[in-house]
Every structure is written in structure tokens, then in C-alpha cells.
């Protein structure tokens, strides 16, 4: 995102500050443009409150994840998996559960009609991106608090405690990538009639590099007698993925919310 205002696009705070004294004076009145942090926190708080008040996304994601582990447990015909197979089962299941959350990320805004009022607020649209990505991140963490123990119970043979810190690091980096890409894809899909189709079709290919990085990082952790910490190389790949897609999302998100 550049500092200059392109036609029709909200400029950054820096560009606004340079837009002239009159505009700046107007902006300081009631309804002045706010920075991204305060509105992002307000939006995040609202999203979490709505999910707490009428739980939809998290229960659906948890139920999907646990059911899928049960299906793998019986479908694979074995009591335990390990190594790359275990990493694949865990991470693909979490990825597909994330698709459910991504699908619903903007639904409350559209269904309840409140989003037009949000778009009329003098806020940097980046705040909406930050809030939606943060909300999805919280949802994913809540799901994993149930999913990882369920996975260990149903599909792992040995104890997971030794590799748990490493697995948490891998999941944290994967979750950031899922949240960033998910917020962008959800904003894109909400403008279309085929939201349920667009989300997996767009998000899954974009998330393949993150899945590869996470699976390679997690496989040694889930191997019998394996490592207790993932290789730095794959953690770096995940970190770079998060950084690159975070910057891309920051750059394009304003355009996705415009008419």
C-alpha cells in the first residue's frame, strides 16, 4: 500500500495528513479517521462477542475436525500413525476445518447488514483485514486446543508431550498463514454468489505452500522417537510465507472492500 491516494482508494494516514489543512481540520472533527489499531480491536471484539453469543464457526470446526480424526482412525484401519502420515492427517484436517471458518468469516456482516455501517466509518480498511485475520486466528487456536488432544488420543501411539512445544510453533506459524489468506479470500468471496465454492477453490491452492512447509516441519515431531523441535529451515519457510502473504493481503484488501 502506498502512501499516496489513488482515485477512489482510501489513503493511508500519512497521505491524509498531507492532504491539506482544511481536510485535516475536518478530519479532526467528529468522525475523524482513526488509525488501524483501535477500530481493528473494536471489530475483533465485536466478532468474538458475536461468536460467543451465537456460536457457529468454532463448534462447526471442532466437530468437523474430531469427526475426521474418527474417520481416519477407522478408515486407515490402524490405531496409530506416525511421521509424515501423521503430519498429513493432522494438518490437512486442520486446513479443511479452516475452510469452514473462512467461509463464515464475513457471513455475519452480510447476513446482519451491519457491514455497510462499518464501511461508512472513517477507518482505514486495513483495520477490517487485521480484525478478520485475528478473529480467524483465535478460532483456529480454539479448535486446535481440542483437535490436537483428540488427534493424539485417536491416532498417535506414544506421548506427544516431548514434541508439543515444536508442534505448537509449527501450528502457530501455519495458523497465521491460514488467517491472513483466509481473511482475504473470505472478503473476495463475500461479494460473489458462489461463496461456498469460491473459498475452497481460491484458498486451497494458495495454502499449498503453507501446508508443505508445515507438514515437513511437523513430520519429524510426530515420528516414533523423533525430534522434539522442527527444522529451522521449514519454520523459516512458514515464516516467509506468512510475511509475503501478509504484505500481499495488506496491499490488496482495500480494493476487495470497494464497490
Amino acid at each position, binding site marked *: 500500500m502506498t502512501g499516496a491516494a489513488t482515485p*477512489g482508494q482510501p489513503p493511508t494516514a500519512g497521505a491524509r495528513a498531507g492532504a491539506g489543512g482544511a*481536510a485535516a481540520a475536518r478530519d479532526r472533527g467528529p468522525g*475523524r479517521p482513526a488509525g488501524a489499531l*483501535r477500530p481493528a480491536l473494536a471489530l475483533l471484539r465485536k466478532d468474538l462477542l458475536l461468536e460467543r*453469543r451465537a456460536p457457529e464457526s468454532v463448534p462447526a470446526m471442532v466437530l468437523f475436525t474430531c469427526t475426521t480424526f474418527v474417520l481416519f482412525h477407522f478408515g486407515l484401519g490402524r490405531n496409530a500413525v506416525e511421521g509424515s502420515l501423521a503430519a498429513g492427517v493432522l494438518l490437512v484436517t486442520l486446513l479443511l476445518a479452516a475452510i469452514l471458518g473462512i467461509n463464515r468469516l464475513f457471513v455475519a456482516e452480510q447476513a*446482519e*447488514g451491519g457491514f455497510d*455501517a462499518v*464501511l461508512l466509518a472513517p477507518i482505514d480498511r486495513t483495520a477490517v483485514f487485521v480484525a478478520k485475520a485475528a478473529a480467524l486466528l483465535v478460532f483456529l487456536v480454539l479448535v486446535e486446543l481440542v483437535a490436537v488432544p483428540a488427534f493424539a488420543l485417536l491416532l498417535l501411539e506414544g506421548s506427544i508431550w516431548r514434541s508439543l512445544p515444536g508442534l505448537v510453533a509449527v501450528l502457530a506459524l501455519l495458523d497465521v498463514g491460514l488467517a491472513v489468506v483466509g481473511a482475504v479470500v473470505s472478503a473476495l468471496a463475500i461479494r460473489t454468489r458462489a461463496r461456498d465454492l469460491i473459498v475452497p477453490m481460491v484458498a486451497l491452492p494458495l495454502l499449498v505452500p503453507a501446508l508443505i512447509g508445515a507438514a515437513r516441519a511437523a513430520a519429524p515431531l510426530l515420528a516414533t522417537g523423533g525430534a522434539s523441535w522442527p527444522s529451522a529451515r521449514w519454520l523459516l519457510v512458514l515464516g516467509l510465507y506468512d510475511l509475503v502473504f501478509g504484505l500481499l493481503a495488506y496491499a490488496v484488501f482495500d480494493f476487495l472492500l470497494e464497490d
Partner: protein
Amino acid sequence: MDAPPAIELRGVSRRYGERLALADVSVTVPAGATLVVFGPNGAGKSTLLRVLATLLRPHGGATVVLGEPLPARQWAVRGRVGLLAHDALLYRDLSARENLRFHARLHGVPERRVEELLDRVELRGRADDPVRTLSRGLLQRVAVCRAVLHDPPLLLLDEPRANLDPAAAALIEPLIGRASGRTRVITSHDPAGGLAEADLALGLRGGRVALRAPAAEIDVRAVEELYA
């Protein structure tokens, strides 16, 4: 020197795909004046409000709102417009107070303003109920509070008194009525009532201007003909 107009539209158009929702609409609204827009369903009234609110981009012509050309400087208009749309633009699972506090945070308005408005529309007793449990009339009162929360100089009101009984209409009158001192664009299906409130009247039919004149110069029958 005369104050610049609050709204200046010259040949504005807007399409939805192939369908022309607004075509060559021109009108100038002085600051502090009230424009009432008449027209049958599908005439383009709500589209016009959404263009003025920056929620839709005009596809042709020149649109200047509060001195800012749209869409080039639409960010400078946001936060200075209050929109009361057909939908309440509220989150149904949040209470009236939670909805208003949320919007207060977005607009940088102190939360005491929320309590002041809840008092003014006599909603304190139901302020903590989810808005999905409120009647349409009570919901409209909350929506009015949301629209004026940030004290905007321009109000865009889509049939603002629909669903309100006379007592409730009287409650919101100081907030959105002429006495509020704001520039107002109001859509109405009530020719006599609308003309009584208007400084200027605009009639739309099929997205085109069918009537445009100072309200004092218009016979109510001319407005009624729009619906014929």
C-alpha cells in the same frame, strides 16, 4: 459569499450489470436544505442514497458530496454521513447498547454519547436486549441512534418514519428532523408528507429524473403521478 452546496450531482449514472439504475441524474442541494426523493419501487431512490453514502461508485457524471468529489475522495466523506437505510445495519445478536458502542469506537465518539442517545429515544429499558428481540419500531429507533451517533452534517434517510408510531416519530424528530440543522436527503412514498418536509423535491422513474423543483412550487398531484 454563498456556502458551497452540500450535494452537487451532474449527469450521474449507475448500472447494475446491464441495468441502468440511475441515468443522467442532476440536482444541487444547498447546505442545511432537505431534498426529498420520490418514486415508485425500483426507481433508483435507494441507489441514489448509496451513491451519496460512498457505498456504490457512480459510473458516470460528476458527484460532489460535502465538497468532495466521488469516488476520488470518498474516504473524506465517510464519517461525515449518517445513513438510515431500509435495513437497520445492526448486528442482531448484539444489544442496542453493544451495537452503538461498537460504532462509537469506530467513529471515535465517546461512549457517553451512546447513553445520551438511548435516553433521547427512550430505549434505556431495552438497551441490553439483543436487537433481534426488538419490534420493528424499536429497531428503527436504534438505527436512528446509529445514524446520528457521530453527529454527521449530512443525513441520508430511506423512509425514516416507516414502522414508527406517532409518539416514536416525535422522539426521533429532534435527531433527524429539520431542527437537527443537517442537510438531509430523504426518500418517501408519501407525496403530501414528503413535500411538507422538503425544500427541494426530486422525482425518479426508471432511474431518470421525472420531477425536480423547489417543494413550494410543486403540486402534490405531480408527485402522485410518479406512482401512476
